[in-house]
């Protein structure tokens, strides 16, 4: 394979402007379109963005350091606080790392519940993204629709997990407890309700000419740059790279399920929009299959009373709503991890923003940031 030179990412600094026409604008850390505490320093020439530097760390909580001070089971709940919209997938990724380390087999019923919960979380995350995208581009209605429908998913979570957001449900060895008795009925009702609503979503936002004008050709991320930066999730797949952990490095029962990995080739904001909408449809299909084949039985494997992580390096990789999240666990034979490292999909996806934003207008920053769909607590950890 011939190596292509990677464009050297030269970050724009925040120093004095070389000419007085350049000026710098702080977008955030308190800004409605950054979806969290993220600061972007924009270097502008009139309305055109010459460069952009993200300033991170406003919600850095030292989760990796905290992981070294608690047992692997205690750490599970902190993974909820990374990307809170993918809480189930984060739990799953950490559980995978621990299960590999301990060599635990997960019961079949728990594997099915994990898939259903994760795909529901993916849908709910994309619903929130869709609503906020509309809001960022000046349309208020999608926000209300998105949150109206997201409420149904949260109700399902609340009934079974006891929490709506920081669920702490998937745990090493299985899931916390079996689903409550109305679960299958509720989920089926949600699928029946939401399948036609996606078409409504598409008509309302995707069919809007103003929305198309503001996203088509805006913030184009090339496939080579996306690969080199380690972008994942819908951001990568909208650039024409077909990579999905569920397909390329399957875990759980995903190999047994029949689903498509939506991709687009344009790499612009419009492509990222289309990929996420298509993902919601696929997630509904996955949930239906997992529900139909869900067996009875235990939902949690037996764990040792004191879980000791054997010496070695373990890595749990799952496809969260925003891309691949990885949990790297270094054990030393004691009950506490020697090192915990979180590979955040948002961190790598955001790294693309300074590259693809050059030459765009100020208003496009909002559109591109919104379709990259970053969640700041996952970046800052």
């Amino acid at each position, binding site marked *: *394979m011939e*190596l292509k030179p*990677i*464009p*050297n*990412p*030269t*970050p724009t600094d925040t120093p004095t402007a070389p000419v007085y026409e350049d000026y710098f604008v702080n977008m955030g850390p308190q800004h409605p379109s950054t979806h969290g505490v993220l600061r972007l320093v924009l270097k502008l020439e009139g309305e055109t963005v010459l460069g952009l530097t993200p300033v*991170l*760390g406003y919600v*850095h909580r*030292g989760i*990796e*350091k905290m992981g070294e001070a608690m047992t692997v089971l205690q750490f599970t709940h902190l993974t909820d606080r990374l990307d809170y919209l993918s809480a189930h997938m984060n739990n799953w990724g950490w559980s995978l790392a621990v299960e*590999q*380390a301990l*060599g635990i087999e997960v019961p079949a019923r728990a594997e099915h519940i994990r898939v259903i919960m994760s795909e529901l979380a993916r849908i709910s995350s994309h619903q929130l993204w869709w609503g906020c995208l509309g809001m960022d581009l000046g349309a208020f209605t999608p926000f209300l629709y998105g949150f109206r429908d997201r409420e149904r998913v949260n109700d399902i979570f609340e009934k079974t997990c006891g929490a709506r957001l920081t669920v702490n449900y998937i745990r090493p060895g299985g899931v916390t407890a079996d689903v409550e008795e109305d679960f299958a009925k509720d989920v089926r009702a949600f699928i029946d309700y939401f399948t036609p609503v996606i078409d409504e979503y598409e008509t309302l936002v995707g069919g809007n000419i103003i929305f198309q004008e503001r996203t088509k050709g805006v913030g184009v991320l090339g496939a080579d*740059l996306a*690969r*080199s*930066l*380690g*972008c994942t999730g819908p951001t990568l797949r909208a650039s024409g*790279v077909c*990579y999905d*952990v569920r397909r*390329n*490095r399957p875990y759980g029962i995903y190999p047994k399920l029949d689903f498509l990995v939506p991709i687009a080739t344009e790499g612009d904001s419009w492509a990222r929009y289309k990929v996420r909408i298509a993902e919601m449809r696929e997630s509904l299909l996955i949930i239906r299959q997992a529900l139909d084949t869900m067996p009875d039985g235990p939902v949690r494997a037996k764990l040792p009373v004191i879980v000791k992580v*054997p*010496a*070695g*390096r*373990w*890595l749990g*990789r799952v496809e969260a709503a925003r891309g*691949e999240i*990885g949990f*790297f666990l*270094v054990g030393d034979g004691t009950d506490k991890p*020697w*090192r915990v*490292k979180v*590979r955040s999909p948002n*961190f*790598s996806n955001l*790294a693309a923003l300074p590259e693809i934003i050059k030459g765009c207008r100020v208003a496009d920053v909002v559109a591109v940031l919104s379709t990259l769909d970053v969640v700041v607590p996952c970046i*800052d*950890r």
Partner: protein
Amino acid sequence: MSEPTAPDAAAVPAAPPAATPAPPPAPDPAVVALREEVARILGDTATPDSAAGVPAWRVDATGVPDAARRLRAAGFDYLLFLTAVDRPAEAKFEMTYLITRFDDGRQLALVADLPREAAEIDTVSGIWAGANWHERETFDMFGIVFRGHPYLRRILLDGDWPGHPLRKDYVDTLHDVVKRPY
């Protein structure tokens, strides 16, 4: 551990069976194939690491950019992340590069030891652009200097933050927790 004793050695207290580690499972064919492939790519510059879990290779700290370049040219186009593991007992950092690829997701770890005092290593941000921010984070959290990095500054903490928090000897003076005997 000594050889198994003859059955007549009843006076010797039998070792508790729980202490014997389980026999290692049969090697995964995918891992064997990966080991062969990486041995072909890296040659004798890298030695396989025996630690359990992710298949790992050890290289000299000076050989990291070369090994990274070879792996990238051989199709390992996806740097999942890079980080360090502090080993104060051995006075070293283990720089760990988790490298995989987009087609089949095969993963390997490239491990290089750095002395804890004056930890420096060449950057790989010219090989995978994504390494840029990860190296900044590793600098931020461990104080490891990446030679040739285009913009080596703290990324998550404030510029004037004292110390590097993920070092094992880091003392948090700001949130000093009183240790109680109960």
